[in-house]
């Protein structure tokens, strides 16, 4: 009998799985830290300028975003000039009025006057496109705007 018992002791021990949860949690943490919540997929470069006289954008009021900047690497076929992006696609200046109106339709009526348009414009863009956007917003009567910026010393922008 003792012969058989000896054989058993030579088998491989089971792999210890106690550290599996740790590996899973590590992954969880990695994604938690690396996740940026973003509503739109950007097709343009969007490095915001910085400023220090800033106010927080109130999430209580409805916000619409208008992006502008030059097309990013994957979309170079759209040119190197700054372009406007609304929702997930490139748009023309003339589309802005329709965009604002469609944003308004989605809102409750009492919130419509509080609609703020956040302009997320790349710092290398020039004012021509921003001026065009502002003019269209005036036509759409969306007068509350916010130049979205990062936080920092404004003198850095000029370098």
């Amino acid at each position: 009998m003792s012969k058989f018992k000896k054989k058993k002791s030579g088998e491989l021990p089971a792999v210890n799985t106690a550290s599996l949860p740790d590996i899973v949690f590590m992954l969880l943490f990695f994604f938690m830290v690396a996740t940026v919540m973003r509503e739109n997929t950007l097709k343009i470069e969007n490095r915001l300028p910085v400023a220090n006289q800033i106010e927080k954008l109130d999430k209580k009021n409805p916000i619409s975003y208008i992006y502008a900047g030059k097309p990013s690497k994957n979309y170079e076929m759209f040119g190197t000039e700054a372009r406007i992006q609304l929702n997930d696609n490139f748009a023309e200046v003339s589309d802005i009025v329709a965009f604002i109106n469609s944003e308004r339709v989605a809102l409750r009526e009492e919130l419509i006057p509080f609609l703020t348009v956040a302009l997320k414009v790349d710092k290398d863009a020039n004012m021509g496109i921003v001026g065009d956007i502002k003019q269209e917003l005036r036509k759409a009567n969306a007068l509350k705007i916010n130049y979205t910026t990062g936080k920092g010393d404004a003198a850095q922008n000029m370098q």
Partner: protein
Amino acid sequence: MAKRSAPEVNAGSMADIAFLLLIFFLVTTTIEKDSGINRKLPPIQPPDQEPVILKQKNIFTVLLNGKDQLLVEDELMELKDLRKAAIEFLDNGGDGSCTFCKGKKNIHSSDNPDKAIISLKNERETSYAAYISVQNELVGAYNDLRNRRALELGSTAKWSQFRDMNFVEMQDNHKDVRFTGNKTKLKELIDQIKIEIPLKLSEVQ
């Protein structure tokens, strides 16, 4: 003796440690909020309306040209000097009706902060970064004056509960749900300062 194997490490508390970390990050994470410079655009003028006539001395023209050079009242200026110049203009109090102004009372500069208008012009080639820097300095000038006024008012008996609170802090506190003071009174004070020193910054194209 030959059968001795390594003792097993007790892994029962591993899950606790992982949860501890999870809870730590849950509590400390803040979802980034956008912030920026708030502005109000002027409504489109009906074509038959007569334009309002303003005195030249009440307008402070800032021009940012296509090469990002700053021209203030027809003179070349560095960005760092802009805020001081704007404060000097707003704080001038030429007609003596402004009780809190500490300016030079120069009759060739603005009458009072209510009448003073800063006009910011840009060209199509101006870079957005430069434009934001200039906007930032001009808003900064207004904020500096409003802060000064807020501290002045805070030292009076009527507003003594808001002592040593400047205008920017007042606005932050008004938005903050955790603020324990009297919010209606705070709003009243903020509005009073806004009426005394209105932000009249026009963006011309």
